């Protein structure tokens, strides 16, 4: 099932895949910050 989903993603139009890449880049940039913020808020308790 997972392989089927991955193939479906691979067959999407290039422009759609590029939009998803942009989302992934944003997530990768924001995720470490969120982790840091989480650690800071926990240590403040």
């Amino acid at each position, binding site marked *: 099932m997972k392989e089927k989903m991955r*193939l479906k*993603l*691979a067959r999407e139009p290039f422009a759609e895949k*590029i939009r998803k890449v942009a989302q992934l880049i*944003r997530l990768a940039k924001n995720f470490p910050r969120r982790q840091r913020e989480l650690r800071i808020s926990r240590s403040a308790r």
Partner: protein
Amino acid sequence: MAVQESADNLPLAEIFRAANDLVAAGLVRDWALGGALAAIYYVEPFSTYDADIFFIPIDESLAAGIPAIYGRLQARGWQVEGEHLLVRGFPVQFLAAIGVTEEAVREAERIDYEGVSAKIFRAEHVIAIAASVGRTKDKARIEQLFQQADLDKEYLQNILHRHKLKLPIL
């Protein structure tokens, strides 16, 4: 008229327009998108750090016309940061094509992206170039292309043979 890209998307149409402008200005002979974004044309999307534009230089010197190329792109508002150019904060690398990458530019697939004409490496060339580089992420890219892309195996074997390349053990 070209479609305006939204600010939260990758500025790929702007990158392609700029590369076409370099050809029109006589600063490069030809160009094509390579690297991770070329692989993504054939496989599921994944995160990547930059866009790699491979170009065939007009200038045969070691500098490959890079100063003039950078000057032209800076005039479009692009910024230089280390070995990258930044367009709307997204890093782009312009790499002079030689050997297998030059062949990849010449034989690249023509596409239309959001109304802009562009060229993109064929999947078989993406594999051959990854095989020549051989990092862990290149091996993963080769495996993914074998799983998800429609490959012309004969064409791939021909490229590998002509450039004396071997596929890694996956």
